[in-house]
């Protein structure tokens, strides 16, 4: 006989809930699966659209535009590697500075890396990019010159002539100038006898600064000079490999582009000595003053950490304070012990 449950008999809770729970679970699974499918579908759809967009030539875009972007992308990747390697090399040079052989080899690798860096920079500039590198402090004119020398093969042939010591270029604007100067100095060294010197000098003019590169080459014919000048002035030179021709014009095209975007003027003339005089006219806007102490490394705060002089110097009379204690002395950048 079947026992009938009286209504008062408590229902076994798990049994009662099993069916709705299973239904709810199934519904949940279905909803989740549907949501996942929907999301996947959307992602797929978006991906396909993007792919389609990337493959389809844009109606408003020059067919060369994607090639240009690819070149710039490559240039940026090389620049990133070079910049990291230059930082690491600086650390290695500090670590191995006392071992002349290792240090000399590191300097050689450093030089090679800087040359690669300039090529990558040129590639980016020709692709229409403005140099992105910013320096965190104003760069003295000498720093600009030595920075440019750092990036050319024949830097030992370059002499630094007279220059205004206390003028600096704004750190955010120095990079195009350094790169342009490197191209001009490289041209000067390349097209002059290998045993001749190249001079870099600078002087102030009423509304700015002129940096000059003088070589002792045979000069250029009037036609070649006109062509070079044109290469400098043609702002429209884009990434058209067919128009760039051989290396010297490539360098000049880079200089022309940099001058146009950064706001300085470059000109080429015959010099009185027979070679070529390349001048960069830097507007006042890009200049910053430099503290005297800053121009003459090292900085004052470094020297204040100088330990007290030892040996016979200790016997020198100190000034005394009101309490009869020796006065503090510090070492200033001019090398004098000064009473504060």
């Amino acid at each position, binding site marked *: 006989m079947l026992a009938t449950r009286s209504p008062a008999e408590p229902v076994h809770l798990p049994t009662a809930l099993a069916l709705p729970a299973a239904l709810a679970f199934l519904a949940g699974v279905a909803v989740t699966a549907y949501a996942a499918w929907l999301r996947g579908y959307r992602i797929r759809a978006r991906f396909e659209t993007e792919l389609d967009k990337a493959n389809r030539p844009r109606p408003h875009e020059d067919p060369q535009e994607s090639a240009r972007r690819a070149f710039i992308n490559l240039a940026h990747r090389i620049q990133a590697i070079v910049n990291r390697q230059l930082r690491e090399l*600086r650390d290695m*040079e*500090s670590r*191995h*500075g*006392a*071992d*002349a052989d*290792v*240090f*000399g*080899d*590191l*300097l*050689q690798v*450093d*030089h090679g890396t*800087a040359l690669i860096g300039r090529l990558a920079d040129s590639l980016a500039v020709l692709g229409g990019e403005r140099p992105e590198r*910013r*320096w*965190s*402090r*104003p*760069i003295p004119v*000498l*720093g*600009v010159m*030595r*920075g440019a*020398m*750092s990036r050319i093969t024949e*830097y*030992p042939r370059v002499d*630094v002539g007279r220059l205004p*010591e206390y003028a600096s270029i*704004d*750190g*955010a*604007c120095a*990079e195009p100038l*350094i790169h342009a100067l490197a191209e001009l100095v490289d041209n000067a060294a390349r097209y002059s006898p290998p045993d001749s010197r190249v001079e870099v000098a600078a002087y102030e003019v*009423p509304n700015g600064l002129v940096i000059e590169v003088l070589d002792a080459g045979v000069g250029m014919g009037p036609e070649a000079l006109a062509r070079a000048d044109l290469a400098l002035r043609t702002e429209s030179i884009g990434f058209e490999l067919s128009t760039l021709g051989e290396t010297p014009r490539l360098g000049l095209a880079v200089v022309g582009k940099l001058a146009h975007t950064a706001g300085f003027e470059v000109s080429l003339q015959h010099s009185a000595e027979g070679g070529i005089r390349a001048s960069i006219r830097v507007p*006042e806007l*890009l*200049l*910053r*003053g430099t503290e005297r102490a800053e*121009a*003459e*490394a*090292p900085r004052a705060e*470094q*020297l204040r950490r*100088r330990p007290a002089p030892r*040996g016979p*110097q200790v016997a020198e009379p100190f000034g005394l304070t009101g309490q009869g204690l020796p006065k503090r002395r510090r070492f200033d*950048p*001019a*090398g*004098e012990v000064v009473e504060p």
Partner: protein
Amino acid sequence: MIRRLAPPTAEDPDDPGPERIYVLTGGRGGPHPRTRLDLVTLVLAVGGARNTAASRRGLFPEHRAIIRMCRRPLSVAELSAYLRLPFGATAVLVEDLLQAELVRTRAAVVPAVPDPALIEEVLRGLQRL
């Protein structure tokens, strides 16, 4: 004539600037072995008529900084720290100045070590007490 373009950027002490060390040393990794410069060699600027503005022309600011700092004898290691340059580069700059006769060097004074025989004699004397 100099005016400011932008507020000064935050200075990063680790930013070495655009100049590379080989430009400063002319590619040399260290002084000539005959120059005999080491970390504790003391460098002293040569004063007087030789050290005139004319003789200092053509020197880099780093050279001039060495001359200024070496009015008192300073070791190459200390110079290297003040200039924030590796030892090899500092030594090359000092060598340039030596050749221009703008500085002279002297080996660090080694503290005099008493004769070992004397020390033994003293030891024996103490033990006898």
